């Protein structure tokens, strides 16, 4: 909210030091956004608070200033008015409960002139362009009191108006020269089939006040906030009136707005009127009561405020104390404070005026609750550390994929750009793009991982699964075994030493693709795209299933170690050969492939008994079993 200092000062006494004023306003909830100086005028720009409709006005901020410093508002001159429920030679038909209050008055023989400088300068300092005295006056009253007003050219609108919901497709050309196509939830002022204004936000072009206007109909109203809000956002009508009407405005502000407007008309002799307002106000809002329990205030705020001080703060806030005893009180809330409806709201009021600075700072002195962090969150952290320890750099990307990668992805209906439309179904695509970026920038090695979610929809249920993706490319060592060594090391480090790599065709146009299985259950996949290797693991299927922090001791007896070179026929899975060897005897504790030359595979095999040193003849017996089995199953022979 822009607050010209001079304008504010005309309503309330201000401290000399503007910095003190802005600091104090900030502390009680109206943060200073910035200070501007325009034509020698100082203008405060205060952050708007969505719940303080009353503070979208200079008067609202003046009230806050008066509360902070305990000073009275200055006398604001007004014209005394009375109310009537009938306007002479005029009828208004209101067909919807969305209208809460309408005030109207006819002003005749209006003099339309260029605004005097005091008026136009005030508006310009706030940021509204000056038009003519009448339009400017509606704006002045709106900025000062917070109540939007609108003046129609009485001779153009006829004498029979309606406030109703628009029909689908009805059109209005606004005074800003844009044409809107309305729908059946937009509230409008209309004569017959001609829409005169969109209620609460913008007037029509032809029927508004112009230089030739002789007589006007002035209105100020209050509508259902939510309805106005929908209209304002749908048609982008964030006008000064629109942003006020979509908040919880107090219907009682209407009276003050008229009194103030008419005061100026009379003072400057800009028109003739009878000080009687047509008032449609089916459900009058009166001040409501709230209780305050002192014990609750103390417990909730952590502040021990004396009753006298509470009373003084409430009085400065213009809240009327109607009942008081030693442990509670009842106040009446003025109707402009539409935000204060609960005891907790009242507590905030007292505490913010008493000063947030005065709240003591306690370090959660209460009993420490149980630790409830789920294991998988801690494990995910451990995975991250493990990947880093193997030399992988962490990548975090937006979980959207480029359009060219889309398949059946879950998608956004209102994407701000095509690149934020499709939610990823794999971590591959973004890692792949990043890998290519590194390769193009002459990197020698790509070793990245990402932990994140993928998104899918199954039977009308949206699913999120946590994945880790590893991507690898190396200028020097770009063999599958180089990448697989890292992946298997990762699994070993997080407690899985029995992951199987199964040759399988999968999507993503991968060559050399495979599935990862744990106890025969699929837990991931991998493959090669171009010269880049990739593996993705489904975290939900492995987290919580490993034995963390398993340790083993060095054996007490030395193993027997031997190298064995086997001649393996083509298209034999070496993994299966190793499995076969392992399954022969559990005294075979380690098999490592140490060399490959053509079809000769050299294995380093360890035989070990936990309780003794194996003899040569015991080892020989096992070795013979191995050779017999390999011959039978794979046609493998030993190279002598």
């Amino acid at each position: 909210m822009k607050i010209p200092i001079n304008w504010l000062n005309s309503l309330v006494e201000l401290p000399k030091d503007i910095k003190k004023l802005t600091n104090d306003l900030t502390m009680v909830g109206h943060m200073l956004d910035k200070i501007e100086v325009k034509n020698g005028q100082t203008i405060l720009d205060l952050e708007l608070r969505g719940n303080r409709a009353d503070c979208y006005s200079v008067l609202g901020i003046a009230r806050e200033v008066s509360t902070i410093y305990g000073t009275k508002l200055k006398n604001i001159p007004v014209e005394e008015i009375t109310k009537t429920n009938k306007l002479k030679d005029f009828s208004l038909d209101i067909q919807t409960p969305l209208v809460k209050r309408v005030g109207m008055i006819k002003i005749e023989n209006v003099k339309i002139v260029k605004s005097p400088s005091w008026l136009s300068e005030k508006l310009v300092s706030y940021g509204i362009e000056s038009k003519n005295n009448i339009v400017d006056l509606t704006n002045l009253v709106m900025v000062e009191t917070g109540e939007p007003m609108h003046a129609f050219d009485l001779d153009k609108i006829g004498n029979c108006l309606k406030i109703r919901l628009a029909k689908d497709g009805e059109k209005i050309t606004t005074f800003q020269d844009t044409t809107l196509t309305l729908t059946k939830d937009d509230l409008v002022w209309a004569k017959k089939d001609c829409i005169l204004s969109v209620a609460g936000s913008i007037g029509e072009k032809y029927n508004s006040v112009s230089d030739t206007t002789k007589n006007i109909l002035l209105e100020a109203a209050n509508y259902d906030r939510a309805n106005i809000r929908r209209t304002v956002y749908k048609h982008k009508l964030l006008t000064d009136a629109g942003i006020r009407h979509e908040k919880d405005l107090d219907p009682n502000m209407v009276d003050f707005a008229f009194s103030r407007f008419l005061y100026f008309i009379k003072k400057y002799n800009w028109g003739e009127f009878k000080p009687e307002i047509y008032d449609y106000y089916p459900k009058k809002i009166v001040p409501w009561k709230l209780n305050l329990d002192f014990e609750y205030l103390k417990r909730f705020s952590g502040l021990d405020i004396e009753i006298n001080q509470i009373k003084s703060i409430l009085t400065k806030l213009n809240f009327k104390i109607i009942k008081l005893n030693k442990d509670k009180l009842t106040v009446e809330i003025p109707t402009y404070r539409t935000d204060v409806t609960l005891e907790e709201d009242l507590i905030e009021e007292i505490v913010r005026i008493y000063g947030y600075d005065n709240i003591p700072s306690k370090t959660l002195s209460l009993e420490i609750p149980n630790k409830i962090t789920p294991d998988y969150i801690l494990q995910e952290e451990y995975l991250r550390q493990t990947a880093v320890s193997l030399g992988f750099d962490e990548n975090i990307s937006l979980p959207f994929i480029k359009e060219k990668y889309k398949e059946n992805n879950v998608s956004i209906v209102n994407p701000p750009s095509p690149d934020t439309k499709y939610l990823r179904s794999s971590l591959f695509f973004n890692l792949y793009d990043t890998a290519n970026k590194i390769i193009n920038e002459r990197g020698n090695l790509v070793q990245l991982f990402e932990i994140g979610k993928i998104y899918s929809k199954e039977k009308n249920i949206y699913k999120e699964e946590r994945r880790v993706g590893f991507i690898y490319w190396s200028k020097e060592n770009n063999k599958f075994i180089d990448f697989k060594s890292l992946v298997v090391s990762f699994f070993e480090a997080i407690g899985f030493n029995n992951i199987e790599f199964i040759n399988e065709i999968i999507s993503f146009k991968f060559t050399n693709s495979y599935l990862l299985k744990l106890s025969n259950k699929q837990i991931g996949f991998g493959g090669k795209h171009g010269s880049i290797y990739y593996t993705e693991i489904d975290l939900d299927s492995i987290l919580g299933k490993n034995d963390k922090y398993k340790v083993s001791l060095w054996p007490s007896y030395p193993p027997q170690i031997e190298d064995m070179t086997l001649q393996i026929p083509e298209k034999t899975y070496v993994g299966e050969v190793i499995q076969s060897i392992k399954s022969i005897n559990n005294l075979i504790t380690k098999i490592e492939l140490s060399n490959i030359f053509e079809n000769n595979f050299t294995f380093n095999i360890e035989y070990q008994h936990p309780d003794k040193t194996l003899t040569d003849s015991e080892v020989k017996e096992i070795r013979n079993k191995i050779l017999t089995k390999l011959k039978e199953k794979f046609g493998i022979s030993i190279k002598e």
Partner: protein
Amino acid sequence: MLDNGIYMKEDLINLKNQALARISEANNLDELEQIRIDLFGRSGKITLIIKELRNLKPEEKKQIGILINEIKKTLDEFIQTKKNDLKVVIREWFDPTIPAKLKKIGHLHPTSIVISEMVEIFKNLGFSITEGPEIESDRYNFELLNLPKDHPARSLQDVLYIEEPEILLRSHTSSVETRAIEKLKPPFRVVVAGKCYRFESVNATNNAMFYQFQGFALQEGISMADLKGTLFYFVKSYFGEDRKIRFRCKYYPEVEPGVGLDLDCKFCNQKGCAVCKGRGWIEMLGAGMIHPQILKNFGYNPKKISGFAFGMGLDRIVMDRFKIKDIRSLYNGDIKY
């Protein structure tokens, strides 16, 4: 013969002392080798004495023999030690300036680093960690948070919808708060860090995805003083003991009373600059007491049980900490480790 034996004993001790002196004064390995030959060589002094031994009586022979062995051992050791000393001085050519071949070390993403540092601080205060879905319903993201449809504060949040208007990408981690209050039994204290989304065209300062860090506690007796203490402890631990903090009233629909917390602007030492828009303060986080309506939504009596919540955007903090100027480079693979 006895005299001869005594004479030999003295001779031997003199010989040993002379030899020790010569050894310690040797300047190079050649000299040392010469000393060794003079003592133990074919016609070395010790060798000659050993040859003389056979002329002694058996008991003298034994006595002298033991002495010679001791002397021989002492001198041998001393020569060896001296040899090592001399070797150090004249070691072979070696170049320690040869460039290292670096091992590939992995790095955590800056955002992960900041999250774990913050989590660590809150763990000290008895907070656990939780998480929640990113694809959310309007109910958990807004409705249950005291943000009914058409609430004025909703315009602050322009949302990415998957199915308008009910299914969306969460616009804040407060959606995890509603899920936690629904699921967990008080007392509890939790923090959550995660991705959030908003309708935003991507540029240097805004992204469609951003990270939030949020915490909340629900427990009988929690007050604004506990909130203040918790936030001050966190801010001082993370940003530095010497930072100035402003704890002020601010409106958020999810809390009542609401709190805004600002830190002194260290770019201008509070003199006012472009970063702080001349205010001298940087908005750091939003907080407050969990709104009584939210507690009622989950069947709690706000007068019996209370709680606080706070939240902050992480990306600015990460950018500031790692001197990253463009928000896009955080999450588009531009970071060069």
